[in-house]
């Protein structure tokens, strides 16, 4: 009996929603918006079913679906979820409805096309996280670029063309190399006729060493651009600054995680020896990004640029945890992916709230907002504190585990990365002070009104998650523990051999 294809349904529900939206009359804006939101909420419901059906305590793939897609070429339709993909699937499903909801004020024209693009994007993202066949993965991976390109290029700010073009060229360059590596991986997976693109098979027998290092390089480059790892990050501030609020939210919260997810899903298991060899390089770049991103954030005048640069710093922690190659580090890394999605997604929503009112992203155009929007100021503070990794919030648990894991790997990483702990307070509180404090100095004072009910709804789930994960991280950690443990054991076995 064929099992119920829960994961396929989850992946394609948003696309189905997109089709429905496409059939609607474009003049019925409310219907378009509600339908799109309903599609994303249905996907969230499906994701929650996956979460509920997921059995913790095992590293095995669950809810697997496996059929041949193009048998002649060894390409399969292989889906599955484990402790590594589960948190990211949930993150995607939580963020998308919020992003759609934020578009109600941030996007005013071609609402239908926008909604279709967003829902298509969600399908591509979910597919990326759930694919276990390299070709299928690659298809979803590149499919993400298309709607995102349009979201930036059509609904973006004044320099949207430049930003969208830079985004797609930069990331496609990485993807192209990865495609070559995928094909090489296929060709070296066995004799003709027995070759495969299947992740599980490839992970069981990694290719031999000099070639493994080259393939690692190709994959790592594609992922590192996406993350982005310092110094491959310069597409990010431009893309973020120009993207409309919902685009920035999804970009920061979910798209960047494709890269760090790739580290855990592909680099470590498929290329364990190369991972061990190059881990110091990756960890070093991660630390450089933590410090560099933090310092450069501080010098920004544009809030979106500041938050974008802070992502470089925060994702440095995620990368550092991944290449610490310890259980604590990887658990922290995975948790921090979710945390960054919540807190930085939240920060972009906050900037969006202000931008909707005054159409300015410059901190100098604000001042004293806390007096005009006290509730908004309180919400902002909570999100900022989460981004600063204050204990009690989600960010602390992730950052602490990353530092713990990194210290275990080599104390120098943790010592340097601790500088990021200081810097996040420096640049975030600087932003808070400039925007919220001081005498009221907003340019268009009359337009700066308190959060609406719809806007408040955006933040309630994020705040609940911030505290829930901060206090009870076991909800997520216990579900990823077994998968991470198995992954670390694999890599550490190789590590011992390499040392010999």
């Amino acid at each position, binding site marked *: 009996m064929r099992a119920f294809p829960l994961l396929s349904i989850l992946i394609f529900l948003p696309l189905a929603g997109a089709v429905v939206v496409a059939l609607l009359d474009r003049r019925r804006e409310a219907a378009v918006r509600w339908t799109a939101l309903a599609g994303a909420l249905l996907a969230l419901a499906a994701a929650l079913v996956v979460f509920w059906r997921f059995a913790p305590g095992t590293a095995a793939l669950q809810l697997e679906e496996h059929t041949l897609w193009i048998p002649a070429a060894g390409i399969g339709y292989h889906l599955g979820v484990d402790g590594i993909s589960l948190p990211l699937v949930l993150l995607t499903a939580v963020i998308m409805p919020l992003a759609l909801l934020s578009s109600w004020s941030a996007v005013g024209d071609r609402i239908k096309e926008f909604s279709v693009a967003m829902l298509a994007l969600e399908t591509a993202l979910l597919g990326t996280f759930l694919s276990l066949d390299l070709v299928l993965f690659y298809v979803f991976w590149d499919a993400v670029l298309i709607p995102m390109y349009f979201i930036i290029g059509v609904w973006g700010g004044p320099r949207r063309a430049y930003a969208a073009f830079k985004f797609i060229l930069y990331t496609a360059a990485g993807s192209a190399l990865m495609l070559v590596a995928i094909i090489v991986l296929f060709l070296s997976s066995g004799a003709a006729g027995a070759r495969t693109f299947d992740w599980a098979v490839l992970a069981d027998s990694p290719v031999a060493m000099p070639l493994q290092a080259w393939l690692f390089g190709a994959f790592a480059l594609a992922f590192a651009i996406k993350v982005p790892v310092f110094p491959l990050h310069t597409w990010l501030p431009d893309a973020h600054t120009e993207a409309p609020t919902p685009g920035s939210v999804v970009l920061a919260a979910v798209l960047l995680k494709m890269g760090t997810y790739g580290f855990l899903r592909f680099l470590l298991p498929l290329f364990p020896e190369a991972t061990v060899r190059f881990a110091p390089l990756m960890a070093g770049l991660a630390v450089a990004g933590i410090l560099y991103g933090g310092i450069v954030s501080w010098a920004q005048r544009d809030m979106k640029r500041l938050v974008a640069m802070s992502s470089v710093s925060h994702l440095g922690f995620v990368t550092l945890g991944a290449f610490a190659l310890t259980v604590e580090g990887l658990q922290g890394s995975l948790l921090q992916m979710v945390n960054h999605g919540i807190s930085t997604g939240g920060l972009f929503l906050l900037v969006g709230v202000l931008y909707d009112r005054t159409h300015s992203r410059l901190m100098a155009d604000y001042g*004293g907002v806390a*007096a005009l929007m006290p509730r908004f100021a309180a919400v902002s503070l909570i999100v900022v504190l989460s981004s600063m990794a204050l204990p009690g919030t989600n960010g602390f648990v992730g950052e602490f585990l990353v530092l713990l894991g990194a210290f275990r790997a080599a104390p120098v990483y943790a010592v340097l990365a601790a500088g990021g702990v200081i810097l996040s307070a*420096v640049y975030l509180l600087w932003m808070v002070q400039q925007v919220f404090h001081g005498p*009221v100095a907003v340019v268009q004072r009359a337009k700066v009104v308190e959060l609406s009910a719809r806007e408040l709804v955006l933040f309630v789930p994020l705040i609940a998650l911030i505290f829930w994960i901060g206090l009870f991280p076991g909800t997520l950690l216990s579900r990823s523990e077994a998968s991470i443990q198995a992954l670390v054991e694999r890599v550490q076995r190789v590590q011992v051999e390499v040392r010999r």
Partner: protein
Amino acid sequence: MNLALIVALPLAGWLLNALGAGRLSRRAAGLIGVGSVGLAFAASLAAVQRPEVASGWRVVLWEWIAAGDFRLSFGLLLDRLSAVMVLVVTGVGFLIHVYSAGYMGGDPAYSRYFAYLNLFIASMLVLVLGDTLLALFVGWELVGLCSYLLIGFWFDRPSAAAAGRKAFVVNRIGDAAFLLGMIFLALSAGTLEFSRLAEAAGTLAPAALTVITLLLFAGATGKSAQLPLYTWLPDAMEGPTPVSALIHAATMVTAGVYMIARLHPLFTEAALTPTVVAVVGAATALFAATIALVQWDLKRVLAYSTISQLGYMFLAMGVLAMPAGMFHLTTHAFFKALLFLAAGSVMHAMGGVIDMRRLGGLARPLRWTTWGFLIGALALAGVPPLAGFFSKDLILERSFEAARGGPLLAVWLLGLLTAFVTAVYITRAAVLTFGSGESHGHPHEAPPLMRWPIAVLAVLSVAGGALGAYAAGRPLLVSLEGFFELEAHEPAAAPALWLRLITPAAGLLGIAVGYALYRGRRAPRLGWLGTVFEQHWGLAPLYDRVIVGGAKRIGQDLADVIELRVIDGAVNGLAAAVAAAGGAARRLQTGYVRTYAAVLLAGTVLLLGYWLLR
């Protein structure tokens, strides 16, 4: 009764006042704010009576973080050490909440104020009741947050907003070191539970132990405003005065001292750290006292005084006289809170004026306040038989003994000198504020809600010494000596009489000198020495220009030059190069068959030639 109730009460007060801001009446907001802490104090009083406190009453609440080998639950621990802190925090905290109800009476953000203040009490209770170092750190960072919120309470003032941010950032510098020390400890000892750290301390490598304790102490220099991270505390005076009394004098800033007491098995075993702690403490004590000597802002005098007195406490911790340090922490909480509340009463009476050059002659109109301030000042100066005398005297006695005539005697000398300077600056402040000349305007005494807390603290500042006086059986010290497992310090060889007399003598001399110098209207500026003190012995310009200015410049350069020109320039340069290469290659596509044929032929010849001649 559950131990968690002590924390839950102010936490509930915070939630109610935070969510009800704007909807609660002032009366309700005040009742919730003050009442929740009053109940927490009552609960604490009940809790410390329990017999299990003697051996440590631990309540594990839930498993918090588990990843790999690292497993940690979140729980509370009430033992003889945390009992002292819990009583000080909720007791003094309650008095200051009552005072606040009067002091902040006219403020429109009354609810928000009590929400923050309750959150602070809850956070501080997590700090002192946490059963692991990580739980302590949770409280440690949360009190930093509350401090930020309350310093910047009047956020429309740019100076207040900046001061709050500065406090948070400077604290974060210390916290980063603390975090590293804690991680190092977790990895080398395999635990962060206080109950298991004692046995683990013996198994650690000496070098590791030294590094860990030094990192943790670096965290303490931030939270407790010691050299070199002291700069945020004077600026913290931008906050409402009751906040200065509670957070920036009586409780939060003592967290570093408490942390060392809590980790005494580590700090006692570490080789180098105690000496470092003692030297930093003694140096800070004198350093800050000299700066207090030249301040004109009354609250800033008290702020530097707090830094200086915290230095004494660290001195005590460094010479491993931990009960003495905790004793001074307690008496200091009484008399420094008293001094701040009296200063707040002055501000209240003078319409916010706090510059001592514009004060004077307040003794007559402000009787309660004057008496309160004078009692606090005498206690601070170490005049017997007030509370401060017993604790300060004990610290100096112990540090003299610990030195055993060795180089550590310098620490004792610094402490003694500080005792003298302390008496001078507080006499100066008292004379300039309350004595000499006529009062300006029509100052009026504070309302009862503000007077009574002052009166209670005055009584405690007078009688608090009994907690550690031989005549009264030294209840606090006996309890703490039991906790630290020291044999009760019986005066088998009682300290020499001169040693017992020299500290109060230094204090009395200081009072006399201070009175002689400052009783006239024109206060002397102390010449070039005054300039040195005003410039923080040269540290102020170093911090402002070199460190902060330098960091800002580096950030700007990285953002403008490296980011935009170098890194992004390389990316765009590469793109331009590809485009140019494409343009060049396009010229090869001439469209003429004869060109292609010629190229084809040339290639074939080249390949053939290579193949033949190989």
